[in-house]
């Protein structure tokens, strides 16, 4: 036996960036969150019930943010493409749900389920017909510009067909339930559940299926993967399809409590980028935790900073975290 060195413990940097959890960083983030909330409750100079209400709302909003960010981080993690069309694809899926409901009279959640394969196919086509050639050149700016153009195209086609006047869809469920004395909107709870479900499903697909194995291999080393017989172009298309499908879940589930205009998705694009970078580019748990973190920060922050002032807090803390941990919360060191 020629190998004499003992195997070193798997270094943190070598773990799989797509699905790795990282116990230490999870504990640190949890600790900071608990301490921060405790400070707000004790020294915050606001009614505890009010803070709880904002906290619950913030977590639910964070769930929506996480849902939008999951597809973005998957696409970046595997293809290295910064997908500017993510917000537009979100809007597209919302309008698809609207059309399925208004023309076929489908139940909202049935329409959402139908939208998932449609967006998957859309993502597949975009990657295989538009982006594959550019991705293989290993250039980042060209796919980025294509997705930016695609985003403008989608928004304006929607504007052409549906006009700029707001639409709305009927939700089969409404009302709210009480959590720890705070009121939580049922539809937002469902969206939150969707985020957790999508994150779990993506992790499962990546960890357990042969396609997931191929996706992780391509993310780690595209050339190496092609040499062991992996069709890299197909994996790229599959990944973009999965990213688009997860955005379909997001779009469908937030339609009931979002004003449906062709630019509806854009407000999420910037925040989704912040969340993906904060959580660590290409990390699925990072997108989930980052989304919840930003949601809570923005909502609880608005207790103290009126209007869009809470966004200043969000971006301020975002810069601070990147200063301390440039690779993002769950990101692997480059």
């Amino acid at each position, binding site marked *: *036996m*020629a*190998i004499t*060195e003992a*195997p*070193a*413990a*798997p*270094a943190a940097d*070598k*773990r*799989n*960036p797509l699905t*790795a959890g990282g116990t230490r960083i999870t504990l640190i983030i949890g600790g900071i969150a608990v301490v921060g909330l405790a400070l707000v409750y004790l020294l915050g100079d606001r009614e505890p019930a009010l803070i709880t209400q904002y906290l619950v709302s913030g977590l639910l909003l964070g769930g929506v943010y996480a849902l939008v960010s999951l597809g973005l981080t998957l696409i970046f993690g595997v293809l290295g493409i910064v997908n500017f069309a993510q917000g537009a694809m979100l809007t597209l899926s919302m309008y698809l749900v609207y059309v399925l409901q208004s023309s076929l009279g489908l139940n909202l959640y049935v329409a959402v389920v139908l939208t998932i394969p449609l967006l998957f196919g859309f993502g597949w086509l975009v990657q295989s017909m538009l982006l594959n050639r550019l991705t293989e050149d290993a250039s980042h700016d060209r796919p980025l510009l294509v997705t930016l153009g695609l985003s403008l195209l989608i928004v304006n086609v929607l504007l052409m067909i549906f006009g700029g006047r707001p639409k709305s869809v009927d939700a089969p469920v409404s009302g709210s339930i009480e959590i720890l004395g705070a009121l939580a909107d049922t539809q937002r709870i469902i969206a939150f559940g969707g985020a957790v479900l999508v994150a779990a499903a993506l992790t499962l697909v990546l960890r357990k*299926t*042969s396609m997931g*194995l*191929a996706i*992780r*291999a391509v993310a*780690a*080393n595209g*050339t*190496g*993967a*092609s*040499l*062991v*017989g*992996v*069709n*890299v172009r197909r994996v790229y298309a599959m990944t973009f399809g999965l990213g688009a499908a997860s955005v379909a879940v997001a779009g469908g589930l937030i339609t009931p409590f979002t004003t449906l205009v062709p630019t509806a998705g854009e407000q999420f694009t910037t925040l989704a980028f912040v969340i993906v970078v904060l959580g660590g580019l290409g990390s699925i748990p990072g997108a989930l935790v980052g989304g919840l973190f930003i949601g809570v920060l923005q909502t609880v922050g608005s207790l103290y900073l009126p209007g869009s002032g809470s966004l200043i807090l969000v971006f301020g803390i975002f810069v601070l975290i990147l200063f301390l941990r440039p690779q993002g919360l769950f990101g*692997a060191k480059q």
Partner: protein
Amino acid sequence: MSLLTLDGVSKSFGGLKALGETTLEIPEHEFFGIIGPNGAGKTTLFSVLAGQLAPSSGQMMFDGVDITGWSADKTAAQGLVRTFQLMRPFESMTVLENVTIASHNKYRSPHKAREHAAAVVERVGLDSYMYAMSGTLPTAGLKRLELARALALEPRMILLDEVLAGLVPTERAPIIDLLRSIHAEGVTVMFVEHIMAAVMALSERLLVMHEGRELALGLPEEVIANQQVIDAYLGEDYS
């Protein structure tokens, strides 16, 4: 019958002809060595054969099929597989997962693919590293992993790019034994190597390349006695 046939295959990068028109026939089950100084076109030849670079001209036949211009994954699935001098494992995955990706080409069921991969990992002597992250393997282990990934594709022919480079002499012997046993199982082997002792011990025929062209081709003993080869590559001391 020849397994691999090259007919006037060349590769140019702009004005630079990295690989001149090469015509070559490799019979089934040959152990074929290639030597030559740096920049001779050895790695370019491998890249063209493995489908990573499209040839600028010529035709390649493998096992009776025209593989000219095929993509790397298609070529690999056909049974013509290369390894790299600088190993390219999927660092964030375990050794077993690395090999499983390759064996998926042969076995569709995830369970079968894993079973086959595990057998290949044992075959190359990496059983104790089965669940280790491949990024933590020492160099000799990475070389074995490269071989394992290639073998998991059940290749008809493997192209080995300096599989012994970076190993100390005591590490080389078991790898050479492994190569011999792979060949004994019926796999055709083409290898680029700088370590002349291994080249002489393993090659059935030897090709010397120089500046993208064939300088000499024949039995190893004849080739290294060739004055041109001595001038271009081996140096006076070797003879």
